[in-house]
């Protein structure tokens, strides 16, 4: 891209907020009541983290990997890409994240319990699972556009950062890259759409990363 400095976030927004939100609503309707199941799955993962027993980290990583694949396929690839061609690349990124989760947290033969690294990681994950769906109400978008963990990318990425903050592993810094990039993209998109909650994905991501070093 030439003269990249002359572009603003709004130059990359290729659909109207109305089209974007209608698509989320239609997607949510098509999957209902999977949202409730995902809520329980999310709560279960937070509980596993807090329990922190042998193999719990592996179970969490397997479930998260499956959800990254699911969100990448069913939302990014199958839906968002119809209004944003770049979503196909994002979907590939989500698949890579799933693979990384397996390689770093599941494949190593020595299974280690997640080192519960303070409470902040699980708190970030719990916020993404329990409170993120309510954000659409605060933003005045209505419940139909709620973003639920395991269904939509933002809470899945933020919860993953929270989980990662609790599960220190040797090469796990690699695992932060894609969720962090996603949060940046999401905040920039919401900012371009003049959504009042634009800063939340980024802020949650920063909190999650801070929790890692806490």
């Amino acid at each position, binding site marked *: 891209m030439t003269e990249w400095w002359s572009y603003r976030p709004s130059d990359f927004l290729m*659909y*109207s907020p109305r*089209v974007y939100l209608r698509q989320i609503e239609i997607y949510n309707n098509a999957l209902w009541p999977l949202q409730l199941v995902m809520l329980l799955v999310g709560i279960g993962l937070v509980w596993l983290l807090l329990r922190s027993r042998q193999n719990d980290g592996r179970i969490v990583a397997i479930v998260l990997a499956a959800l990254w694949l699911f969100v990448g396929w069913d939302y990014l690839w199958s839906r968002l890409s119809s209004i944003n061609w770049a979503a196909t690349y994002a979907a590939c990124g989500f698949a890579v994240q799933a693979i990384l989760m397996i390689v770093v947290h599941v494949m190593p033969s020595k299974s280690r319990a997640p080192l519960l690294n303070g409470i902040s990681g699980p708190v970030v994950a719990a916020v993404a699972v329990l409170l993120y769906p309510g954000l659409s109400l605060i933003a005045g978008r209505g419940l139909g556009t709620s973003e639920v963990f395991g269904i939509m990318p933002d809470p899945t990425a933020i919860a993953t950062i929270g989980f990662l903050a609790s599960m220190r592993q040797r090469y796990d810094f690699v695992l932060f890259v894609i969720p962090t990039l996603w949060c940046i993209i999401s905040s920039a998109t919401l900012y371009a759409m003049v959504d009042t909650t634009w800063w939340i994905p980024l802020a949650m991501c920063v909190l999650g990363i801070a929790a890692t070093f806490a």
Partner: protein
Amino acid sequence: MADNRRQSHALWPGDTMMSPRYSINRRGALALMVGAGALVGFSNQSSAQVSSLLTKPIPSSGEMLPVVGLGSWITFNVGDDGELQDECASVMRAFFAAGGRLIDSSPMYGSAQQTIGYGLDKLSRPKALFSADKVWISDPGAGREQIAQSQELWGIPKFHLLQVHNLLSWEAHLQTLFEMKAAGQLNYVGITTSEGRRHAEIEDIMASQPIDFVQISYNVLDREVEDRILPLALERKIAVIVNRPFRQGDLIADTADQPLPDWISETGAKNWAQLMLTFIISHPAVTCAIPATSNVSHVQENMNAATGAFMEPALRKRTIDYVESL
């Protein structure tokens, strides 16, 4: 006053905003523009329904084009949402019913091409359509394949105009487009940019390549192209399509609460959108402006700007001064 203007509305030689070098014959150009307007219509409508639209000739062929077309960035990118596809088809119906012809799109615009194809099907393929699309792919060898895909999405056997979008891999793509034109697979070749980007390269290409069209951003506040590109277009007989006539809607949003100038009746415009459009299409080098909209009443409003008359230079200057003072 308005009637006065109708008699003398002009393409202006030696206007303060234009170099005198590029003056053209007023009467001849006016006859071309207004006279042929009545001929342009929506094939499926009776011509009586289309009041005489202002048109201008494509310099390289003399073919007349209505001075207002239709863009599709964002507004027609509605994915597979059937309800929204129908809304876009209604916008297209209103556009053709008002005598519109040129619709502009690009493979870059998500599902916009697909939406246009849907609308054209729904409207039984209006014969008035002037299809303007783009090549937008960095691989220099992939142009033809992308064009074939775009044709399929529009559901048309060939495009009237293909433009190299934002000059991406322009050397190779222009070559392909010239070959297609020579083989009768395309009527016109063009290049595009927006918001003032790569103007030096645009000028070089305009000066050195036999292109028919150039597409640039131009509006009452963004007038950089008046210095060199628009005069060059007149000199090289290149048609000019104007994108971002409303700065993606910001110009209208920013002026919405402001009072319209009390001399607006002299321009023939009735609202801000029409004033902005009339300003643009009154420049002698501009062939047509392509505002995008997802709203039927807006497309009607925009097309109405092409039913008035062109502004005199003094009135254009007054429009600039007024908008800049807000």
